[in-house]
C-alpha cells in the first residue's frame, strides 16, 4: 500500500473551555475515499479546519505527504496541495461565479493581466464536468444553496489537489447533483488522489467510500473498511449508546383544523397553495430542493409577504407579513438555517430560549435577566441542551445542540401549530431520533405540525400526510398509507400524472 497522504495522530484542540478535539486521529491513503462520521459536535469539522490551517492544533501529530505539517493559514495548506469544501459556503457574493472559483490564482496573460476569456472557458469546462449549467459570469449573490455548494465543489476540484476534503458537501444537493459529484469524486480517486468525505447520510457513505473512521466526543473511535462493516455497528460506535427507533411515529387522534391555508400566491415563488393541518397531525412537505417549500412556510408564518390568499389559524385570519401576529395566534416556526435565522448565535442560551416569550416576562414594566433565566431553564432541561450555564453563547455549541435551543425557544411559546423546516439537517443520528420522538410526542399531545424535509425517509417515516411541492405548487397530496417514494418522486418532478395533481398545473409546466 502507498504511503498515507494524510496522517493525524492524537490531535487536540480547545476553544476556550470547550475541548473540541481530545484525540483526533485519521489516516488517509492516496486513491481512497475516506468517510469521517460522528455525531454533531464530534469534532469532524474542527479536524478538517486543522488540516486546512484555519485552526492550529494544540497538540498531537499532523503529517501531510510524509512530512510534518503545521499550517498557520489556509493559504499554506492550499499551496501544499489540500483542497477543502467547508461546511459553510465561503463565496464572495459580489464577484462572478468564475472569479469565485479562481480567486487568487486566476490565469494570467501578458503583463500579468488576468486572462478573463480563459478563466471563463475553464469555469465552463468545470461546470460541464459537474454536469450543471451555470452562467459563469453571473454574480454569486442570489444563488440557491445548492448552486453555492456546486461552486464550492468546482472550486475544490479545480485546485488539482493531492487531498480533497469535503465537509458535508451533499447536505443541500439533490439526487442528480449528488450522483454527479460522486462520479467526479470517483474519477479523482482513480487518479490516485486522497479524499475525505464527511456526511450524516449513511447510504452515501456506503455508496461512495471505501474506508470509514468514526469519531465521538472529539476522540477517535475506530477505522473500518466499508466492506467489512455495516450501518448498525457504525451507528453504535458513533453514539456509544443504544439509539431508539429512528422514526418512532405513533398515530395520534386528529382534532379540529388548526391551520387553513387558502390560495396562497407570491409572484415568481409559489402559486395557489392550499392545505389544512389538523390538531395532532404531522403534515410533511416534500419536494426537490428549490421547489419553494421554505418560501411557503415563511409566507404562512409571516416573515415573508404574499400577494394573495389567506392564512387562518383556528378559524381566525392571521395578518400577513407579521410574524408577531402569527406568534400571537399560536404559530411557531423553526427555520431551515439555524445559524442565520433560528438563533442569535452570539446571544446566551437563556436569551435565545426566552426570546419569543419575553413579553410575558415583564413585571412592573421591567424585564430582568433573572426572569429570563427562570423561564428558560426548564425548557433547556426538557430538550437536554448541553451547556454548562444559561449565559453561555450559542456559538460554542454544535449544530444539534443549537437546533435543540431553537426548538426549546419555540416550544416555550406553547404553540398550537409548529412549522419545522429541515428539522434534522446536518444533525447526527442520535439527536435525529430524539427530534423525531419529540415531534411524535407533540403531535400526540394535540399539536399541529408542518414538517419540511428533503430527506424522503424522514417525510415518509414521520408524516401523517405528505404534500408534494413542485415549482411552487402543490402537485400531490398523499396519505401516509399511499405515500411511496415513487409517487412522491413523480409528483416532485412531474414526470407523470400523479394522484392529486391538478390538470391545469400539468399543462402549464414549461418542461
Amino acid at each position, binding site marked *: 500500500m502507498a504511503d498515507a497522504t494524510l496522517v493525524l495522530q492524537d490531535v487536540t484542540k480547545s476553544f476556550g473551555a470547550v475541548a473540541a478535539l481530545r484525540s483526533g486521529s485519521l489516516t488517509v491513503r492516496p486513491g481512497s475515499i475516506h468517510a469521517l462520521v460522528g455525531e454533531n459536535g464530534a469534532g469532524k469539522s474542527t479536524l478538517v479546519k486543522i488540516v486546512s*490551517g*484555519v485552526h492550529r492544533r494544540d497538540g498531537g501529530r499532523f503529517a501531510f505527504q510524509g512530512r510534518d505539517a503545521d499550517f498557520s*493559514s*489556509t*493559504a499554506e*495548506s492550499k499551496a501544499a496541495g489540500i483542497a477543502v469544501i467547508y461546511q459553510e*459556503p*465561503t*463565496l*464572495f*457574493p*459580489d*464577484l*462572478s461565479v468564475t*472569479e469565485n472559483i479562481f*480567486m*487568487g*490564482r*486566476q490565469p494570467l496573460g501578458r503583463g*500579468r493581466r488576468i486572462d*478573463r476569456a480563459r478563466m*471563463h472557458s475553464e469555469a465552463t469546462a468545470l461546470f460541464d464536468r459537474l454536469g450543471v*449549467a*451555470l*452562467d459563469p*459570469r*453571473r*454574480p454569486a*449573490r*442570489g444563488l*440557491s444553496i445548492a*448552486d453555492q455548494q456546486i461552486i464550492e465543489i468546482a472550486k475544490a476540484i479545480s485546485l488539482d489537489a493531492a487531498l480533497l476534503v469535503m465537509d458535508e458537501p451533499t447536505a443541500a444537493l*439533490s*439526487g*442528480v447533483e449528488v*450522483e454527479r459529484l460522486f462520479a467526479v469524486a470517483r474519477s479523482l480517486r482513480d487518479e490516485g488522489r486522497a479524499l475525505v468525505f464527511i456526511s450524516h*447520510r*449513511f*447510504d*452515501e457513505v456506503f455508496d461512495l467510500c471505501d474506508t470509514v473512521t468514526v469519531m465521538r466526543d472529539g476522540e477517535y473511535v475506530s477505522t473500518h473498511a466499508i466492506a467489512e462493516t455495516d*450501518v*448498525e455497528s457504525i451507528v453504535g460506535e458513533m453514539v456509544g449508546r443504544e*439509539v431508539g*427507533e*429512528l422514526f418512532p411515529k405513533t398515530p395520534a387522534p386528529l382534532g379540529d383544523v388548526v391551520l387553513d391555508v387558502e390560495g396562497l400566491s407570491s409572484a*415568481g415563488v409559489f402559486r395557489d397553495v392550499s392545505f389544512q393541518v389538523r390538531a395532532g397531525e404531522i403534515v410533511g412537505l*416534500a419536494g*426537490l430542493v428549490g421547489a419553494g417549500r421554505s418560501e411557503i412556510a415563511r409566507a404562512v408564518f409571516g416573515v415573508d409577504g404574499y400577494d394573495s390568499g389567506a392564512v387562518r389559524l383556528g378559524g381566525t385570519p392571521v395578518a400577513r407579513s407579521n410574524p408577531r401576529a402569527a406568534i400571537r395566534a399560536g404559530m411557531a416556526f423553526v427555520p431551515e438555517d439555524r445559524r442565520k435565522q433560528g438563533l442569535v448565535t452570539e446571544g446566551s442560551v437563556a436569551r435565545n430560549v426566552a426570546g419569543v416569550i419575553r413579553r410575558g416576562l415583564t413585571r412592573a414594566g421591567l424585564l430582568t435577566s433573572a426572569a429570563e433565566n427562570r423561564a428558560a431553564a426548564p425548557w433547556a432541561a426538557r430538550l437536554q441542551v448541553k451547556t454548562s450555564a444559561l449565559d453561555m453563547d450559542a456559538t460554542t455549541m454544535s449544530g444539534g445542540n443549537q437546533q435543540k435551543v431553537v426548538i426549546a425557544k419555540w416550544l416555550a411559546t406553547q404553540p398550537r401549530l409548529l412549522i419545522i423546516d429541515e428539522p434534522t439537517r446536518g444533525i447526527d443520528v442520535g439527536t435525529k431520533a430524539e427530534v423525531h420522538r419529540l415531534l411524535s410526542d407533540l403531535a400526540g399531545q394535540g399539536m399541529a405540525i408542518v414538517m419540511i424535509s428533503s430527506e*424522503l*425517509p424522514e417525510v*415518509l*417515516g414521520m408524516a401523517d400526510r405528505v404534500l408534494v411541492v413542485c415549482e411552487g405548487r402543490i402537485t400531490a397530496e398523499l396519505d401516509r398509507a399511499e405515500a411511496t*417514494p415513487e409517487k412522491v*418522486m413523480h409528483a*416532485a*418532478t*412531474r*414526470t407523470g400524472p400523479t394522484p392529486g395533481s391538478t390538470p391545469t398545473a400539468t399543462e402549464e409546466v*414549461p*418542461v
Partner: protein
Amino acid sequence: MSTALVNDPATPTRGARGTQLLGALLRSRELAVLVVLLLIVLGTTLKSNGFLFSSDGFRNLLVTPSLLLLLAVGQTLVIVTRNVDLSVGSVLGLTAYLTGRLFADNPGIPVIAVFAAGLAMGALLGLVNGVLVAFGRVPALVITLGTLYIYRGIFLTWAGSDRINASDMDPGFLALGTRSILGIPVLTLIALGVLAAVGYYLHTARGGRELYAIGSDPDAATLYGLRVTRRVLVAFVLSGALAGLAGVVYAARYGTVSSGAGSGIELQAVGAAVIGGVAIFGGSGTVWGAAIGAFLLVTINRALPIVGISDFWQRAVVGALILAAIVLDRVLANRQERRLREQQGSSAAEAAPPGPDGPPVPAGPTDPTTHHDEEARA
C-alpha cells in the same frame, strides 16, 4: 449596488445575452453620474459661458477636482475591502505642512524629493491605520476616527501657529499648480495618472480582485486562504500615500498651508466614492465611478453660485446628491436582483431536465428504499 459584472466585462459569448444587457444597464451606474456631471457643466455654461470657455474656467473645471479625486481613489481602495479611512483629511494637512517645511528648511530641495517625501509620509500614516485595523481587529471607522484626531493634533502641534506661505516654497513647484501640458493642468494629469494606474490594478491584477473578494465577504476570504491582513494593509497604505500625494498637490495649488488644511474633506471623499457607486459595505464599485463622483461634487460647488443659488445651499445640494446616488443604487440593485432571479429560474429548468434514463430523484437518498431499510434497522 453595482456588481461583479461591472468589474468583469468580459467578451460576450453566446447565451449570455441577458448578462450583456444587464451589464450595459449596470455600467450605466457610472454613466448616469457622468451624464449628470455633463448636464451640470452644460447648464452652467449656458448661464455663463466663462464657466467652460474662458481659459481660466476650463482650467478650473479640470484642476479643482484633482485633489478630491486623489482622495476618492484612495478611499475607494479602502471601501472596496469593507473598510473606510476617515483620517485622509488629517493626513493631507500633515503632508501639506511637511511639503512646506521641506521647502522652507531646505531651499533648493528637488521637487521630486518632496513628492517622494509626501508619498512616504502618507504611506507611513496609512500603515499605522492599516496595522491597527488589521491586527487590532477593530473596524476601520473607529480606528480612523481616532487617527483623524491624532494626526490633526500632531499636525497642529508641529505647526504651532506657523503658516507656510507661497514665498517659502520653490517657484518651480508652485508653477506645477498652474502649469498645463496640452491644455490640461499638470495636477489634473497627476490625478488622472493615479486614477488610471489604480483602476488598471483593481481590474486586471490578482491583488486588485482580491480586494473586492475581501470586501465582499471577509470571513470567506480568510477561509479561502487569501492574505487578508496583507491586502488590507496595502489598501490602507495606498490610501494614505494618495492622501499624502494630495497633501503635496494641495501645497502646490494653494501655495499656503494653514491649520485648516484638509479638515472635513474626508467626508467629501467618502461622499464622492458613494456617489460614484462604490458600495459602502465593500465588494463592488470602481475608481472610475469614484472619480466621476469627485468631479461632480466639486463642479456642483462651483456651479451653484453661477446659476444663482447662494453658496450657503451648496452643502444641502451635496447631501441631496449623495442620497440620490445611494437610492439610485438601490433601485438598480433591485432591478438586477429581479433579472438574476428570472435568469436562475430559466437556468434551473435547463439544468435539470427529466431525462429518460436518469430521472431526478428527490433530494436526499439516492435509493430511498434501501436507505429506509437501513435506517429502520438501526
